């Protein structure tokens, strides 16, 4: 930690630990219930961004009776501004593999998958090597478990869990209606635990050091540490492990370039926070008592005063319009209309008041879109248009 670090760093995920064999063997000797309770008391929440309690997810799946169950590690890291999962898989693959196997043990699955995005094809070879070493060890200790890699092919929406199952089943990556949830009806219709890469890496820490070590970090409702992918106008872009619950103003003091105008928390599907709201915003899951808490899959993009917020929004909307799977009308038509709409206002073809109609459309999408993609377009759209209205018009 250097002297000008304002936000405290942590080092669990990337810490070099060569004892995965021991962690695996020790924890396989415990009962599934003990492991579930360890996770529940750590209060670990999903690190992909949605924040579902991990222990509960494992518990729900373990309680169902089925001959086939699956564990899936979601490595379809596609949210703009997120790049931590690749780093985990390339630097500490055995932590993730151990966690996948332990999850398999807990829920009663014999098979795990890593759904790796097509853009990370170059990771495949190293990862396969790690998997064969891992499976060799499993065989030695007579633990029957297999892990396969499934490659994606360039579709953001496949990071949505049910779209990911569809993709693995050889179909278009179109999200399913929920419920039923993956815990009961996942890959091939079987009970499935699907976790983000980082979530699994945290379970390794928890199983190794115990829940307390994790729980003691962070704040109420947002326990533990989180990897942050920091990019944009910052002198030190990169991946940092930080405690949850920090205030955004501390974050900007640490990572900003003294001219930070706004921070996008949670990628294109997250929220844009303008400078005047930095001190009232903290980073973590909802439920903290003071100020606004913003959840994030770890994407933090900083913008300084040289950036046009119109261009930023235009870029996001292009992204969503392209990545929308096109299945449901609110998202398919909505993304394109929002994009057309802000351009028309900018060119003066529509009056400024048209922005209010677009805000209404974004709200409609939030309520009526089938999955998280369409629902979350309103997050960035509303937070940018409301805070930088003049930049949208002039």
């Amino acid at each position, binding site marked *: 930690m250097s002297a000008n670090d304002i936000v405290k760093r942590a080092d669990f995920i990337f810490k070099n630990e060569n004892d995965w064999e021991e962690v695996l063997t020790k924890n396989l000797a415990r009962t599934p219930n003990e492991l579930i309770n360890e996770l529940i008391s750590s209060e670990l929440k999903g690190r992909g961004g949605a924040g579902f309690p991990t222990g509960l997810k494992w518990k729900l799946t373990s309680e169902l009776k089925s001959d086939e169950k699956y564990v899936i590690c979601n490595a379809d*890291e*596609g*949210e*703009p*501004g*997120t*790049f931590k999962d*690749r*780093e985990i898989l*390339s*630097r500490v693959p055995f932590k993730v593999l151990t966690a996948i196997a332990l999850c398999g043990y807990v829920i009663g699955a014999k098979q795990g998958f890593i759904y790796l*995005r*097509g*853009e*990370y*094809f*170059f*990771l495949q070879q190293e990862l396969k090597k790690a998997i064969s070493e891992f499976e060799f060890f499993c065989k030695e200790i007579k633990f029957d478990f297999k892990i396969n890699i*499934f*490659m*994606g*092919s*360039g*579709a*953001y929406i496949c990071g949505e869990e049910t779209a990911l199952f569809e*993709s*693995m*089943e*050889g*179909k*278009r*990556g*179109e999200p399913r209606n929920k419920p039923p949830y993956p815990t009961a009806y996942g890959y*091939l219709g079987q009970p499935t635990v699907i976790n983000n890469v980082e979530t699994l890496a945290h379970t390794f820490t928890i199983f190794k050091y115990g829940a307390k070590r994790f729980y003691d970090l962070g704040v109420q409702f947002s326990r533990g540490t989180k990897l942050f*992918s*920091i*990019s*944009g*106008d910052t002198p030190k*872009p*990169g*991946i940092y492990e930080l405690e949850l619950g920090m205030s955004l103003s501390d974050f900007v003091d640490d990572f900003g370039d003294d001219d930070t105008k706004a921070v*996008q928390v949670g990628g*294109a599907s997250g929220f844009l926070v303008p400078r005047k709201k930095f001190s009232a915003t903290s980073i973590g899951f909802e439920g903290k008592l003071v100020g606004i808490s913003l959840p994030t899959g770890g994407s933090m*993009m900083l*913008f300084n005063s040289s*950036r046009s917020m119109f*261009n*930023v929004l235009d*870029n*996001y909307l*292009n*992204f969503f319009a*392209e*990545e929308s*799977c096109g299945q449901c009308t609110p998202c398919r038509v909505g993304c394109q209309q929002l994009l057309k709409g802000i351009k028309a206002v900018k060119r003066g073809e529509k009056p400024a008041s048209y922005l209010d109609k677009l805000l209404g459309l974004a709200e409609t999408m939030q309520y009526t879109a089938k999955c998280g993609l369409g629902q979350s377009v309103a997050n960035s759209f509303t937070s940018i248009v409301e805070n930088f209205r003049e930049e949208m018009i002039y």
Partner: protein
Amino acid sequence: MKPITELVKDLADKHGRDRRNLLPILQGVVEQEKYLSEYSMFEIARELDLPVTEVYGTATFYSFLECKKMGKYIIRVCKTITCSMKGERQILLAIQDMLKIKIGETTQDGKFTLLETNCLGFCHKAPAMLINNEVYTELTPEKIREILSSYLHDKIIGGEHVS
């Protein structure tokens, strides 16, 4: 290069003939051919006993499964927010200037196709691009010339694998 029929059969033998093996098979064909022709989709449908519309429907959903003829090297320049802020335009100009093609086009000799793509996950090292499966980051117009020259002579400079 294997003839398509043989390639599809080999891929089906390797991955299986269930619907859930469709994506790896499509990917296998793209790996060799760079794209999925109508003919190869028919062959896959026949081999897996699926309606050809289902194969087409799946193939056209994924942006890395191209359905029109591509060059030997497919360049995909990231256009998402951070790369766009950090000079994606200059990178595109440098490529277009050197290869004399626009976005979506393939060079006359069939060597390069230029495309844009969404977030590659190298925002901290923007701007970034992929050439086939290789990633190149922190690009500058000078670096572009160097990288593309290496491909022109088929002596490929390796990209960045771990950040």
